[in-house]
């Protein structure tokens, strides 16, 4: 079943993007542009692998990935929220730092292997031809990522805390005037974003390819950032975008396998080129219809005393 195999791999390829982008969506909705997703992901990947390798538990590995991403996000929060530093530059610093830190952590694990995350198996149900494995035969991360994005939707649009978070991202001065703790809310959103990016990164060595390779995120953090723009900060469109991008990644792999005579580098470049094309198209379309980006996105906030 070629189509089933393709669908399975599309979902696997999409999951790290969806996880990381979900967290960034929340951070950006609160008005914080954290460009360090790539750094948080790669640290999450290294921590995740180290944790799983040492403990023998995928679950503990995932937890380590989450903590690694969140720890890096905490540094970012301290800098941009506590010290009102430039968010763009701080995000770049986070990525540079993350790549270095992941190398240090991962240095002892090069060439090691672990057993990847187990897949769900429900007798008979998973065996249903065609869609059985696609829906009921994934690893746990996949179900977590779907629950996560649904939960984010519910949080943003159905809870008071979500409303406050959107308000902080729309107009931090007004939110402050109404007595909401702008910086605390943003710090929590950034930490959540870091945790999600860490989990998304950890997915790579725990489920996608069960070993550690330095630089294994390969720009997925940046693509996750582009996905948030593509989604216009809407959770539903974010999920759609993540699966579309997963599909592009997988199709180029299959095309390479099929030997179309196109240089493999061109196929590998496809996700990056697709990102550019999508960014341009979305920005252009939005330029004509007014911007739904959180109005305070990327701006530092220092309350008057």
């Amino acid at each position: 079943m070629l189509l089933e195999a393709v669908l399975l791999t599309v979902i696997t390829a999409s999951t790290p993007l969806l996880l990381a982008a979900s967290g960034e969506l929340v951070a950006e909705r609160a008005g914080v542009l954290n460009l360090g997703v790539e750094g948080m992901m790669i640290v999450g990947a290294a921590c995740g692998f180290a944790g799983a390798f040492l403990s023998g538990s995928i679950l503990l590995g995932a937890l380590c990935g989450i903590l690694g991403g969140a720890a890096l996000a905490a540094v970012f929060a301290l800098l941009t929220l506590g010290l009102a530093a430039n968010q763009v530059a701080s995000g770049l610093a986070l990525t540079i730092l993350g790549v270095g830190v992941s190398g240090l952590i991962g240095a002892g694990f090069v060439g090691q292997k672990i057993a990847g995350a187990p897949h769900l198996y429900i007798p008979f149900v998973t065996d249903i031809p065609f869609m059985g494995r696609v829906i009921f035969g994934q690893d746990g991360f996949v179900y977590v990522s779907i629950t996560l994005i649904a939960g984010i939707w519910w949080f943003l649009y159905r809870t008071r805390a979500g409303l406050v978070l959107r308000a902080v991202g729309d107009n931090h001065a007004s939110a402050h005037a109404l007595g909401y703790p702008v910086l605390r809310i943003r710090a929590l959103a950034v930490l959540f974003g870091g945790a999600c990016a860490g989990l998304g990164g950890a997915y790579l060595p725990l489920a996608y390819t069960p070993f550690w390779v330095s630089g294994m995120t390969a720009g997925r953090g940046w693509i996750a950032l582009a996905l948030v723009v593509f989604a216009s900060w809407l959770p539903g469109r974010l999920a759609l975008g993540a699966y579309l991008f997963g599909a592009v990644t997988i199709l180029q792999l299959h095309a390479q396998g099929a030997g179309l005579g196109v240089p493999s580098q061109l196929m590998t470049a496809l996700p990056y080129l697709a990102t550019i094309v999508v960014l341009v198209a979305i920005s252009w379309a939005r330029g004509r219809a007014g911007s739904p980006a959180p109005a305070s996105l990327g701006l530092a906030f220092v309350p008057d005393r």
Partner: protein
Amino acid sequence: MRLVLERRNEQSVAVAVLSPLLAVVLTLVTGAVLFAVLGKPPLEALRIYFLDPLTEPWALQEMAVKATPLVFIAVGLSLCYLANAWNIGAEGQFLIGAVAGGGIAVATHGTGAGPWVLPAMLLVGAAAGALYALIPAFCKVRFGASEILVSLMLVYVAELVLDYLVRGPWRDPKGYNFPTTAPFDPVAVMPTFSEASRLHFGSVLALLVVIGAAVVLRSTLKGFEIRLVGAAPKAARFAGFDDKALVLVTFAISGALAGFAGVVEVSATVGHLQPGISPGYGFTAIIVAFLGRLNPVGILIAALFLALTFIGGEGAQISLKVPLDVTKVFQGILLFYVLACDTLILYRFRVMPAHPKAAHAA
């Protein structure tokens, strides 16, 4: 008690000068802690990292050689960042410059072409870097697409272009199947100061670029325009400056300088094209630009310091057996401290009582 930020009435000039120094000191302290955690003697490690290279003549030359591409790129980036245009794809522009300029060397290999080859390489490399940088700039100006993400994506694309060429059409048939082009002919190599030295004339050009940028920023209307557009966009429009055109101009300049750095690097120190011709100069230059406070002279000093971390890192890898990634960690931490210390230029800290008491006036 808690600490809060309070806006300064005027920017502190003293802090502006001191903040990069403070950042460096804090990085060294953090580095000592890091080495201790890695189980290395902290002071000795710092000595190997930051002092030993300064005591050896070859290492000093090597510092200048490594600082050269950083200066070119960071000066260009500083113009962008001052104008609030975020080119973070200098690494890609560097590679494309190297590929385009190096392509001339490859094409003329063994043809006995004259001394025009090197100047042509430099020109073409700069032009290619500029064109490559204009892609994100155009997407930004015309469609409003994030120049940050587009320029970054193009880094990956540039790496793949280089990879394709040196594994495919440009591969040296005599290269034992290694992904590399044939070594450049002497006419395609940047001359060095002496037979034994690696210090080349590109470093002199880098100094000229620093002086030129300093003059432009301080004494010309264009420099004023760049600073004003970044600092107060609405005031810049009121002054009659075109912010969109400036995005194109600053991206083109920084792309040209990055491309130039790329072709200088392959021509002067690598001598052929291969994957991995840059140890991340395009990203390190971002740190250089900020550590130098987006000021050309500051960038010159900062580039020498960052070059030191590259050399010290190699030394430490050999004598201390620490991974090369320590250098990246250092660089990341340094940028963090720079950004943190810059806060003190606009703000000061004040201690606030946790719960202000409504005390009676005396």
